[in-house]
């Protein structure tokens, strides 16, 4: 019965090999930024074709969620559309984590208005007056505009919840700049902004509300919205948000997108991060409407 023995042996070997590959299957937990979640999802879906032994689980929730999870030690990679604050780095160190920052792409932060809104461009100072604390633009007529369908003339200011990276970046880049110019008293948001819990909610609300103005990552823009052309200073020529203007940094509110790992990435996480920064990974990012970290030739 030599034949039988060989079969038994080969079955055992196959079992052993498959057992080994099961053991090598690694799960990477990836969480955070609502701006990055779509592209993070696309990376995670594509990656098994590159390395079938690694599974990446992605969830959104906002940059704050990802960073909090990194501090609490519950994720391998945290996505963020803003940098970690000093305080957050400190509390991460205190709880034994060592977040290492990687820039994985750039995003144009678009200012959305209703498609019937006649406005085309806004300067930082105008945005400051609309969004900032103590800003004096509460009606569209304050900006010299008459918006069809907005009979109350009131500007409905749509913002994000205070843990959002998009919120933090808008505040830092636009409102702080307007505050320095003396347009508003303090570089923070006014009261009464509708704080949405995701970029998509902002887009939905602005689409439906003629009086509204809001902001979010460019990748969330739809055809039913108008994207405002933004200038840094009053009277200066404005730049429209697009992948190209975000890539060459000519768009004034383009921001880096970050991924944080705990310590310098090793093993499967390092391979994944390297792949994200490779041409293949960066092309997925470009296809989703973000700007790459370096020049790439995508098909």
């Amino acid at each position, binding site marked *: 019965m030599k034949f039988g023995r060989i079969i038994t042996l080969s079955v055992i070997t196959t079992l052993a090999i498959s057992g080994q590959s099961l053991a090598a299957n690694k799960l990477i937990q990836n969480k955070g930024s609502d701006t990055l979640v779509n592209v993070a999802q696309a990376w995670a879906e594509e990656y098994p074709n590159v390395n079938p032994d690694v599974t990446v689980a992605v969830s959104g929730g906002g940059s704050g969620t990802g960073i909090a999870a990194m501090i609490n030690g519950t994720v391998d990679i945290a996505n963020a559309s803003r940098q970690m604050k000093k305080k957050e780095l400190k509390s991460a160190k205190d709880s034994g984590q060592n977040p290492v920052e990687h820039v994985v792409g750039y995003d144009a932060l678009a200012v959305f208005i209703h498609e019937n809104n006649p406005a085309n461009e806004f300067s930082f100072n105008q945005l400051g007056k609309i969004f900032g604390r103590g800003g004096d633009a509460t009606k569209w007529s304050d900006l010299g505009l008459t918006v069809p369908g907005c009979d109350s003339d009131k500007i409905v200011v749509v913002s994000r919840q205070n843990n959002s990276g998009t919120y933090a970046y808008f505040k830092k880049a636009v409102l702080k700049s307007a505050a320095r110019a003396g347009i508003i008293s303090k570089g923070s948001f006014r*009261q009464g902004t509708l704080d949405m819990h995701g970029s998509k909610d902002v887009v939905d609300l602005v689409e439906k509300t003629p009086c509204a103005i809001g902001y979010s990552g460019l990748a969330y823009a739809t055809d039913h919205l108008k994207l405002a052309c933004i200038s840094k200073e009053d009277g200066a020529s404005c730049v429209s948000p697009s992948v190209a203007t975000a890539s060459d940094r000519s768009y004034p509110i383009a921001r880096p997108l970050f991924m944080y790992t705990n310590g310098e990435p090793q093993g499967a996480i390092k391979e994944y991060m390297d792949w994200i920064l490779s041409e293949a990974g960066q092309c997925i990012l470009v296809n989703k409407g973000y700007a790459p970290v370096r020049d790439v030739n995508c098909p």
Partner: protein
Amino acid sequence: MNHASGQQTGNLPDINQRNADWYIDKIVQYLVFLSGISAIILIVGIFIFVTIEGFGFLLEDFSFREFFLSPWWEPTDDDEPTYGILALMAGTASVTGLAMLVAIPFSLGSAIYVAEFATGKTRETLKVLIELLAAIPSVVWGFIGLSIMNPLIIDLFDVPVGLNILNAGVILGLMAAPIMTSICEDALKAVPDRYREAAEALGGTRWQVIYKTVLPAAKNGLLGGVLLGVGRGFGETMAVLMATGHAINMPSSVFDSVRALTATIAAELGETAVGSPHYQALFTIGIFLFTITFIINLTADLIVRGIRKS
């Protein structure tokens, strides 16, 4: 054993004997006792947990003036985070206030109808329907606010956004009404029939009997029901989160968007680092909410109990 009592005392069975029945009896006794006090243990446990989590904030960053008197809630500001809940309290209070304006006439009306007028099948059907209304999940109410009330309010009142006090107030009022109806109906039923008979014997009409006799007699129970509705309004989260517009605001009209205390905790807690001042500040709001609802519910309970005893 049954005959034993009739016979001589010397033949009485030993009632202290420890057979299986005795053990079962003891075990069931302890189980019932445990489930009886479990609610109390849980409540005390929750209170201790919430207090411990919020305690660090109360000791360090907490300033009574800022917390209760500042309308600025900016816990994530880099330079100087502010933790003022005045605007959030105004939001919760205005939504709950409007909800009660909606719910009191509805619930009182239906309670009077069910308790005093409806009979037989109508009464039973109505009671079941009211209980059913109370069982609708709050996220469904929130969804109604978001997708039905929002465009309706925009059309009817010509306002830019329909997510506001009016929307949340009506939704919350409809949510609180069934519970209030049940309690108010109990209160009306608790009024002895001899009161009604006496009033009728004096020649009172149906309405006079209710208005002059039954309602005053059930006054405490009705008040208790309303207070429980208020407690419900304060504690409700999901529907309020979805229907208010979630805007930190000191409201000046019912068409202003506001933000509730509960909604703030729900929206922000998942995104804070455990143990950070922001996290602890949210728990401090929790302590505040817990205290308020506890006082409201306790008052309501004492009032209802008062009527049952007298």
